[in-house]
């Protein structure tokens, strides 16, 4: 009706709203409330620069910081049957899945990569809490089995970062069956004599804790991570009393003998290198940020390498014994 209300005002508004500070530049630390500049936070591996609170980190960001030069090849995970139960609550399960895929840009709640950390060849699997709470369904089960098989095939240690609310209810009993399934995967590693290192991150709960996350050769946790079978709320409802401060947190579990170590995220990479090298009988590592390996399939661009790796046997595997030779410092 009125060109001022219909045209001028929206135009002015749009100009001003564009000038508003983009929301993704800053985030607030949930623990101490400090406003953190995004790039600074990313550089600090999503750890609050003020209070050292460990915020969530996606598997891809973690891999970028973990692997030498950020280079790894993605291990292909077999696709499971989609929505086997035709599950529907307030939303259909496939719709929830699609929404999670859209917001995270990932196919599912676990990413598996093969590459080198400190020139130590490893296979790494990381669970994505931002994808439907990291919940363990058939895909996550398949991913862990694929990771274990890859590790056995390449004779490498498996490092697993857990983060999950538990089993994925929308897959019903089939998600529960991932507990024995993933246990079989862990057994494959043990039989092959390969180390299986679990890094428990915030939060690791329910069926995930009660299967592969608690079966590691070495258990490391990030500070203050919630690690439990039954969540604190469920326990409070059951026993009708308030739980003490720090209950079921990483430090508490360390005190109760469930973990080997609690390690700050910035020291994690070095520690993993140290541990895996000792267990694999390799000489001490060269410290520092290393460029991506010069040869081998791990150095190739991720997606391409993943596709090729699925088709051809990995040429790096038989060469594994020679690897230590490359560990001499490069000029």
């Amino acid at each position, binding site marked *: 009706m009125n060109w001022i209300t219909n045209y001028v005002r929206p135009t002015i508004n749009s100009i001003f709203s564009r000038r508003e500070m983009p929301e993704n530049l800053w985030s607030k630390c949930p623990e101490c409330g400090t406003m953190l500049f995004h790039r600074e936070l990313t550089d600090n591996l999503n750890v609050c620069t003020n209070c050292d609170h460990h915020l969530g980190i996606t598997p891809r960001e973690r891999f970028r910081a973990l692997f030498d030069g950020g280079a790894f090849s993605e291990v292909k995970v077999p696709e499971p049957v989609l929505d086997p139960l035709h599950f529907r*609550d307030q939303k259909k399960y496939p719709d929830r899945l699609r929404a999670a895929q859209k917001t995270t840009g990932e196919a599912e709640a676990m990413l598996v990569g093969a590459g080198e950390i400190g020139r130590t060849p490893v296979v790494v699997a990381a669970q994505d809490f931002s994808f439907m709470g990291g919940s363990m369904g058939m895909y996550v089960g398949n991913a862990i089995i694929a990771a274990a098989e890859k590790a056995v095939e390449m004779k490498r240690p498996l490092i697993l970062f857990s983060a999950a609310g538990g*089993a994925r209810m929308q897959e019903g009993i089939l998600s529960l069956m991932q507990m024995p*399934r993933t246990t079989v995967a862990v057994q494959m590693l043990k039989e092959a004599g390969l180390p299986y290192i679990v890094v428990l991150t915030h939060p690791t709960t329910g069926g995930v804790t009660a299967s592969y996350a608690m079966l590691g050769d070495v258990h490391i946790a990030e500070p203050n991570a919630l690690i439990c079978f039954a969540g604190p709320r469920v326990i409070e409802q059951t026993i009708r009393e308030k739980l003490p401060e720090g209950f079921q947190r990483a430090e508490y579990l360390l005190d109760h003998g469930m973990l080997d170590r609690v390690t700050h995220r910035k020291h994690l990479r070095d520690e993993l290198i140290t541990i895996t090298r000792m267990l694999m009988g390799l000489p001490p590592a060269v410290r520092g940020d290393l460029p991506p390996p010069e040869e081998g399939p791990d150095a190739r661009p991720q997606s391409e390498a993943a596709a090729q790796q699925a088709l051809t046997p990995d040429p790096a595997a038989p060469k594994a014994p020679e690897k230590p030779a490359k560990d001499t410092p490069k000029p």
Partner: protein
Amino acid sequence: MNYLDFEKPLAEIEGKANELRALAKTSEGMDVEKEAAALDAKAGQMLKDLYGGLTAWRKCQVARHPDRPHCKSYIEALFTEYTPLAGDRNFADDHAVMGGMARLGDRPVMVIGHEKGHDTKTRIERNFGMARPEGYRKAIRLLDLADRFNLPVVTLVDTPGAYPGKGAEERGQSEAIARSTEKSLQIGVPVVSVVIGEGGSGGAVAFATANRVAMLEHSIYSVISPEGCASILWKDAEKMREAAEALRLTAQDLKQLGVVDRIIKEPLGGAQRDRAATIKAVGEALESMIGELADKSRAALIKDRRKKFLDMGRKGLAA
């Protein structure tokens, strides 16, 4: 006799029939048999209708029925020379898990199961069938013993879930469950399992990691209780009927999904109406499942068990 809420009309009719008969006993010369028989027939038909098409939620109620035979009832009726073994050798003995050596027929076996208790006193003693880490560690010990002395393992699953308590968490509930599942996958003897009531999530899976898994017709086995699922996904614990339906937790659905191998038929009106017949049917199923595995080598048993679980979930429900 305890009646479930959906059995109310049935309770009324059966109550009337009983009243009539009681009345006839006190007053001489009154013939009520005809009317009582008519009521019985009506009740019989109603029972058939009710149990012919139990919804998932009603099945949950039947699976949790207090009069259903529990682990102890099966052990007492089916096994001889039952010798209970106690303790995890670390901390305590968990009464929610019972187990020990026994003979099934002539064959010595190791039997392990969750026991819920049948009255207030025993329920508290048994912690309502919710095991603590000690229960799972006791099971690991018994599984190991069975493995070393070649005893087939029989497990009876009936638990609402592992106990969500402070002490249980402190002593590593998740680690205990994980290790017991691991042990179940490692042993070179036949492992057969029957879900006799509730198969509650992680608390059940360790015991049901077997070469053969059977379920009673009206038992359930689920990743989460319908109430828990409803409160998380529907944000309303009262939506348990919908959740029970969606979770596909009935024996029939699980058979179709390939998670269980066989369904053991229950008497009309559920196990609680004819405990002896139910126990007998379970005994026959156990004999038959152990029989199927008796000739297999240790390596084959381990391999079969692993393959069974690795293959699980390859097929979904038909649309």
